[in-house]
């Protein structure tokens, strides 16, 4: 049971991120939720790459057991892509704020309804 603890921990983070992304009405908070969801996936991958008694995947005479380098590479790529998408999302929020004067979803939708009866 203890062997799956890491994964459950990931699921808890993931679900919290998901809930905030759906339920929060503030757009910046939604992006924070998305970030938490994303980092939970990172933790999931890195946990899967870990080998018990392994060491960091840097070759050395003194070690013979290494953790799996492939998830590390994938997550390196994912972190950078994640920052790129966060930047894009935040730029969109800044534009929405210029257009609507608010970053609260309910307020924005109310303005939309008033404009198109």
């Amino acid at each position, binding site marked *: 049971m203890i062997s799956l603890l890491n994964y459950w921990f990931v699921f808890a983070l993931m679900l919290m991120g998901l809930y905030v992304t759906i339920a929060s*009405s503030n757009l*910046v908070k939604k992006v924070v939720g998305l970030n938490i969801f994303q980092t939970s996936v990172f933790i999931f991958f890195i946990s899967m790459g870990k080998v018990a008694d392994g060491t960091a995947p840097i070759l050395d005479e003194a070690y013979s057991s290494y953790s799996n380098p492939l998830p590390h590479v*994938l997550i390196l790529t994912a972190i950078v*892509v994640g920052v790129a998408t966060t930047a894009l999302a935040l730029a969109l929020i800044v*534009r929405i704020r210029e257009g609507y004067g608010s970053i609260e979803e309910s307020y924005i939708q109310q303005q939309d309804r008033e404009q198109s009866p």
Partner: protein
Amino acid sequence: MLLVLSVALLRIRDLFTVAMLTGIYSLVIACFFMLQDAVDVAFTEAAVGAGITTVLFLTTLSMVGREEAPISRINLPALACVAACGALLLYASQDMPAWGDPQAPVHQHVAPRYITESAAEVGPPNIVTSVLASYRSYDTMGEVGVVFTAAIGVLLLLGNGARRREDNEDDAEDQP
């Protein structure tokens, strides 16, 4: 620790505090990656996640204001959806290999080859570097494409805003 931080992140309504907590959260995650032998990922997360993302959030907050409207009630449909996902994930996790198990399927396919052959085939002692720059360099090229697209998107979105503000100022000057 991470759970406490993320609960705080989601409960606090002052967005400035949330932005600073995001930085701390990223740093804690970087420590976690370090413990899991993922040193390259750890320093990328520390630099990019804790550094750049926090700066991005702070810049945005300086433009949009830092107060979040109070949340009136718990969103029941969202909670139901999240609970359903959680149940499915828990059910699926029963089939996961144990953490750290060297016999897990993840470690059986290409990883042994990367570990045993990369020194001869590519060169650098850091296997992550070899895989990133040689075996999976198409991934890295795609990543550059994504970052480039995102940069263009941000410039287009914000550049237009700046120009429109100038137009507005011009209009304001014309009016009186």
